[in-house]
């Protein structure tokens, strides 16, 4: 199928009324949770996961994806108006967005964020289509050794490139992989770590784990934090209009941000949060007057916002063509695909053209919808910021309970979410990343299966990971990623 045929095929899928409605619903819900500090895309997607059991696989994925990129739009609103990032990706937007709001240019800052997000997403779709076909063809030659090595590299990259101490990040990944071992072992049929509990035979429920680690832990941490004083400023439509100078300044940062985000989004392990931080750093470095940054430079909004939206789209490349999710949100997407019996991989484009092209086209429709609707609705989103968190979180808790219960009618799962939530919060307070735990949990069983298969083929010879050039490349990259923090630590000690 050529790209053009694919796109027209995708159009017929994405324009089905049911798919369209779920896409619009997801985009609106995503914007809402992005706007509200205290709930993020992660929590919203986990809350929606149980619903995806009841709708078609295309509608489900299109909806979840729309929540994800919708939240990227919404996140900027609270960042700019209140200096409270609505999502982690929009944390850098506070640096120049909030100063602009204080100078009375909140409207222009919001406009810049929306337009950059839109441009970043649209160009991200182009990168996605180009990369997916190429990577899919490349990956058809991958064997079990390559897959195992690549997934290990992704996990190590996610732990050492991100913030925090590498040992702490790696420990969360390993803990996640071990949690993934719970349940019946697919290769031998042995029940591992079930301790006689029938409910654990199928393993720990992904929905329960994600809801506890994200939905619940975020609620606990935000009850006090999200309570603030003073209403947000009023923003009218007229204030959104930028000057010609503003527009001129936005063009190049959008281009740079898109390329940067598109690249880092497609790498397994690095996602949209890292992209937006790198996008900001890049803009400040290339700026002729770097001192303007931090005092309301519109480039400091355009670059990172384009980068994180572009990364949010290209994050689907490894997820769909390799079956390897690059960040925890993609891990949930993969989980939703697997729930519907679709195993993503190199054959994705041929085996499930409806899903792939339908998603691609829905990205375009959803982003267009967000741009067209969000600019006029900006007043509504701003007024959402007036709702205190204490009105929301008890309802979120009830929805979490019912969401988990609806998966298989088990109150055992609700009690388990309570326990996971408490542990997840305690981990988050101590600056351990629950996101990496979830990533390890999803990738763990895939790594184990592929490792087993690779060693079976090579008759137990570990040299297979060095002999095969592609696998060897991944192994070397993994070693380099592990050595990086060690070298940094040594230099700090000597210097």
């Amino acid at each position, binding site marked *: 199928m050529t790209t053009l045929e694919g796109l027209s095929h995708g159009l017929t899928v994405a324009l089905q009324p049911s798919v369209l409605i779920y896409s619009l619903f997801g985009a609106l819900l995503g914007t809402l949770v992005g706007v509200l500090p205290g709930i993020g895309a992660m929590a919203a997607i986990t809350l929606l996961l149980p619903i995806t059991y009841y709708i078609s696989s295309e509608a489900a994925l299109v909806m979840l994806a729309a929540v994800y990129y919708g939240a990227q739009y919404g996140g900027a609103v609270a960042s700019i108006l209140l200096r409270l990032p609505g999502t982690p990706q929009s944390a850098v937007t506070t640096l120049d967005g909030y100063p602009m709001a204080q100078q009375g240019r909140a409207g222009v800052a919001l406009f810049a964020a929306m337009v950059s997000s839109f441009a970043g997403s649209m160009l991200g779709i182009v990168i996605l289509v180009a990369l997916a076909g190429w990577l899919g063809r490349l990956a058809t030659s991958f064997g079990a050794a390559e897959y195992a090595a690549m997934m290990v590299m992704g996990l190590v990259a996610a732990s050492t490139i991100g913030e925090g*101490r590498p*040992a*702490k990040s*790696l*420990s969360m990944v*390993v*803990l996640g*992989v*071990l949690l993934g*071992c719970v349940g019946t*072992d697919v*290769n*031998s049929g*042995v029940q*591992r*770590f079930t301790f006689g509990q029938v409910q654990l035979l199928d393993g720990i429920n992904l929905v329960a784990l994600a809801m506890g680690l994200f939905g*619940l832990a975020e609620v*606990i*941490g935000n*009850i*006090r934090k999200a*309570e603030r004083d003073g209403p947000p400023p009023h923003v009218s439509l007229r204030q959104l209009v930028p000057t010609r100078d503003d527009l001129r300044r936005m063009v190049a940062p959008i281009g740079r941000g898109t390329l940067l985000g598109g690249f880092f989004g497609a790498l397994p392990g690095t996602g949209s949060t890292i992209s937006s931080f790198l996008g900001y750093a890049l803009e400040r470095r290339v700026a002729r007057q770097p001192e303007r940054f931090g005092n309301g430079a519109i480039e400091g909004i355009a670059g990172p916002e384009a980068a994180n939206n572009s990364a949010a789209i290209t994050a689907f490349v490894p997820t769909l063509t390799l079956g390897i999710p690059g960040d925890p949100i993609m891990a949930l997407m993969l989980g939703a695909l697997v729930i519907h019996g679709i195993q993503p991989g190199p054959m994705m484009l041929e085996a499930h053209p409806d899903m792939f092209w339908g998603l691609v086209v829905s990205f375009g429709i959803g982003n267009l919808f967000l741009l067209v609707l969000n600019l006029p609705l900006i007043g509504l989103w701003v007024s959402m910021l007036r709702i*205190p968190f*204490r*009105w929301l*979180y*008890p*309802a979120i*808790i*009830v929805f*979490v*309970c*019912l969401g988990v*219960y*609806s998966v298989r*009618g088990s*109150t*055992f799962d*609700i*009690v388990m*979410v*309570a*326990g996971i*939530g*408490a542990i997840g*919060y*305690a*981990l988050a*307070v*101590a*600056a*351990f990343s629950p996101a990496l735990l979830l990533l390890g949990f999803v990738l763990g069983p895939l790594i*184990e299966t592929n*490792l087993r298969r690779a*060693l*079976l083929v090579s*008759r*137990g*010879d*570990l040299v297979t990971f060095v002999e095969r050039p592609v696998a060897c490349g991944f192994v070397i990259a993994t070693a380099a990623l592990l050595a990086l923090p060690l070298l940094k630590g040594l230099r700090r000690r000597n210097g």
Partner: protein
Amino acid sequence: MRRDLYDAAWGGVLALLGLAVAGWAASNYDFGSLRRMGPGFFPVVLGLVLAALGALIAVPALARRGTQRHFAWPETVGVVGSLLIFGLLLNRAGLVPTTALTVLTASAVAPRPGIIWRLVLTVAVTALTWVLFIGGLDMPIPAWPRSL
């Protein structure tokens, strides 16, 4: 000097957990060989890795100053408690009383005191839940205790 107690404690917990996992897996599941990995292979190896990482986190943490971290105890107890109430009560008391009690418990740890707004919220969320899940989605949960 205040040590980094959070890292020390978590590092210790993870190290012990890793050892326990590796020990349990080694004595209960077949380890196999590199050629034919048994069900015990992955847990044993990774349990040992986790133990090493835990030690790597805990030992240096004892020698450095920790950052002050705020642990929201009341909120944790309130939220976890409200979930436990929901989980334990749902099949016995039905959806409406369970939801009401859950919301009342959860809202007790909000930064704003007072009972009026909590009662209003309880009624609103309970009504919304009933409309959505019993009226709309027709979930097979009793709305009231069975004896009624």
